[in-house]
């Protein structure tokens, strides 16, 4: 099989070089589309053909959050060979952190009208706010937690796993177990995160009404900004000396270690960075969809993210973004028209991409272009 023997990526230098070359194009397309969509929504009246519906804006915003999550997975998988099946955990934790802030913002506008306690706590007959909810009425604190909580979890997990050299499928299974355990935990009412129903019924964010068109557009722009920043930051990391070591780890970890690099340190910090990206993606996602529940932690969600990256092409950053948006667009269309077929399609996609398209769509195009040049 020729497919099986093709090297997954071409040499390091060209990969990094390519990232730099693509950055302006990527950023231009990203901001071009979002700004056009924003203008279409706000500047044109409902009946104009240039009008972009708020539904589309929200959908686009959601896709960008997924794209950021996919980029987080790509950073560890595509560049360092760490296949994480648990990035949904970091995404979910980031989402919960912001959700807690939004929950506190409801104040006494909830069904029970309790100014201190969110509705579900009143419903469970809780008398006072649990200690870990303190501080979430401050936006800056919530924002800090959006990055700190996933980061610390990733650090602890990475420290334990990478230091004892858990690699390959073992590591993948452990990450899956991690998100599975979190799902079980968040389903419990006693945890104080709304159990089954999660956090919802949000009203406003920093005083902006979440239902308003302008807020939606604002959130879309912020998501695009976050994605753009993450792209630039990731590109900078991969271009630095640390990035070179990370690529070396992917290609041959024992050899890199023998040369004298403490490979586990690089892996831990890359994992933490990736987790923080996923946490930010979750935090941007929650105000746009208006709910966060333990379903986000389900192992299936996390593994779906991996398939987005695989479809787009791993180890390219923009490939992950393309993959996330394409697959999710397909999912939106499919589940509306023929919901039963979606799992068949997704399953088929897993198999087809791994067997026939190991470098994803990006790889396919690159091969075509390369072929023509030669």
């Amino acid at each position, binding site marked *: 099989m020729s497919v099986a023997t093709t090297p997954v990526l071409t040499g390091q230098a060209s990969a990094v070089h390519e990232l730099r070359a693509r950055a302006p194009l990527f950023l231009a397309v990203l901001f071009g589309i979002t700004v056009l969509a924003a203008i279409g929504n706000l500047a044109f009246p409902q009946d104009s053909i240039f009008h972009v519906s708020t539904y589309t804006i929200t959908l686009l915003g959601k896709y960008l959050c997924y794209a950021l999550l996919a980029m987080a997975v790509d950073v560890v998988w595509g560049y360092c060979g760490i296949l994480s099946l648990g990035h949904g955990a970091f995404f979910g934790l980031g989402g919960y952190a912001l959700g807690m802030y939004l929950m506190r913002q409801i104040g006494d506008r909830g069904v029970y009208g309790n100014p201190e306690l969110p509705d579900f706590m009143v419903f469970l007959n809780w008398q006072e706010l649990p200690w870990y909810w303190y501080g979430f009425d401050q936006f800056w604190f919530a924002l800090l937690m959006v990055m700190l909580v996933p980061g610390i979890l990733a650090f602890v997990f990475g420290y334990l796993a990478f230091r004892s050299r858990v690699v390959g499928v073992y590591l993948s299974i452990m990450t899956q177990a991690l998100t599975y*355990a979190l799902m079980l935990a968040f389903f419990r009412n006693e945890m104080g995160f709304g159990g089954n129903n999660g956090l919802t019924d949000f009203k406003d964010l920093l005083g902006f009404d979440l239902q308003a068109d302008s807020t939606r557009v604002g959130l879309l722009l912020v998501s695009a900004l976050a994605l753009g920043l993450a792209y630039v930051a990731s590109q900078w990391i991969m271009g630095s000396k640390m990035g070179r070591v990370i690529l070396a780890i992917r290609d041959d970890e024992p050899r890199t270690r023998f040369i004298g690099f403490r490979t586990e340190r690089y892996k831990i910090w890359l994992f933490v960075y990736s987790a923080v990206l996923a946490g930010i993606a979750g935090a941007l996602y929650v105000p746009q969809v208006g709910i966060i529940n333990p379903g986000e932690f389900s192992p299936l969600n996390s593994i779906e993210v991996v398939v987005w990256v695989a479809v787009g092409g791993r180890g390219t950053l923009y490939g992950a973004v393309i993959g996330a948006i394409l697959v999710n667009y397909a999912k939106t269309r499919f589940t509306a028209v023929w919901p039963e077929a979606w799992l068949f399609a997704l399953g088929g996609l897993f198999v087809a991409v791994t067997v026939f398209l190991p470098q994803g769509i990006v790889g396919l195009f690159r091969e075509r272009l390369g072929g023509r040049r030669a």
Partner: protein
Amino acid sequence: MTGRFNQAIETARCTGRWQALLLCMALLLLPYSVWAADLDSALAALAGASLSKVPAILEEVEAVGGEAAVPAFTAMLEGDLYYRRSDKRVVRAVRDDAGQYQLSDPLSGASLGASEKSALRKVKVSNRVRIHLRGAIARLTLSSEDPRQRLRAAQNLLERPDEDNLPLLRAAIETETDPDVVELLQTALALNLLQTSGDSEARLGAVETVAGSLQPAVRNQLQSMVQRDDDGNYGEEDAAVREAAQRALVTIDSRISFYGSLETVFFGLSLGSVLLLAALGLAITFGVMGVINMAHGELIMLGAYTTYMVQVLLPQHIEYSLFIAVPAAFVVSGLVGVLIERSVIRFLHGRPLETLLATFGISLILQQAVRTIFSPLNRQVFTPDWMSGSLQINSVFSLTYNRLYVFLFALVVFFVLQLVLNRTSLGLNVRAVSQNRSMARAIGVRADWVDALTFGLGSGIAGIAGVALSQLTNVGPNLGQAYIIDSFMVVVFGGVGNLWGTLVGALSLGVVNKFLEPVTGAVLAKILVLVFIILFIQKRPRGLFPQKGRAAE
């Protein structure tokens, strides 16, 4: 004369009415109806009898009818005994859904049609009569031929102590031959004495007798003896007896908690056996090919659905269905496994992470296929009679047959697999490839072929696990998912060098889980086990029994 008659009738009741008739005529040339008329007429006296006369009539019925009168007594005890106003016939009447009363003969159970409530009058029953009835029923069944009947009668006597029963109990202990029944009767007698005897010596002796018993009634009685009532008096006046009772209570409680933990161990082993079945196939494929088969759970599910299909196709042979289902599920899941290996995994050699993703895709397809073909709802798989019920060790400890058999089955599968791996040429090849693939190929082992067969074998075992699981949980499209992460944990914990690791890993995780559950709740127990495993692989990253090799890492 009635005695011989009783015996004849007793035999006859077991074998049927016609034979009874023949037997009676042959033996004594007396028609059955004459004797039956005796019992019937004795019973008929109940119609309209005043409460004060009822006990005498009951004694008469008991003397005439013997064990044959038990159904009538039971009916009377339950308040179902009436008589018809028109002809004073005593009948058993039960209200049906339509509000009508269905009549039947209180002795033979033969139907006598339906009737309005107004045409009936109830045979009067008071508490005194009820006590009498219970005693009579106990006396009659205690002399039954069937030891199980006698055991039940003894249990009844134990739960309703009554001074009147003392001579009955003593007599029964004298004649009883079955040791279980004797023990139960002695406990009943002692319990009876504890409640009714005024002699503290007798009560002290009784406490000694019941000290080892696990009957709930005994524990309640002892408890009431050592506790103060509302007026501050102890249930038992004599301090020495009270002290003995206290000691007996401690013994009983420690025995109950001992059996309680035995039960937890059993539940844990049962969970462990399920994990073992689920993880064995996974461990083999992982060990040999280094790939994690994420579709393993769905292969288990296919096994469970195969059991369902076998039962649908052979509805009249539910009892044997499992014996057909085990090989059938092995073949179905095994073939699907070989198909997966040949069509997908073969092309992903040396890329374990991609294999993981591809097999995950296959698992989604299989799940959705089952959902489309069968429906997303659970299917009902029947449990054969020989697997239902439970093995009662004593009154606080019993083992359900389905869990017991699944546990034994898992061990059998484990040892058969060990034999296959250690004693057959296939096993030799499998071990060779798993230890050093390239070296094995170099000396002529067809690694491709071994891969396909190993994958088929692992998948077949998943199918067998599905048959076992169909007897314990619901059979639905999500069946596999519920166990898959746990069985991964078993493989990670046990290591892949050796199937013993899987055995030890599965059983210990199962037991630990079940011991944590009552303390922390089921969900937290699962989380704690996961955390434990994450910490465990710090110490031993390759599991309990790692594969030995010289690869430098």
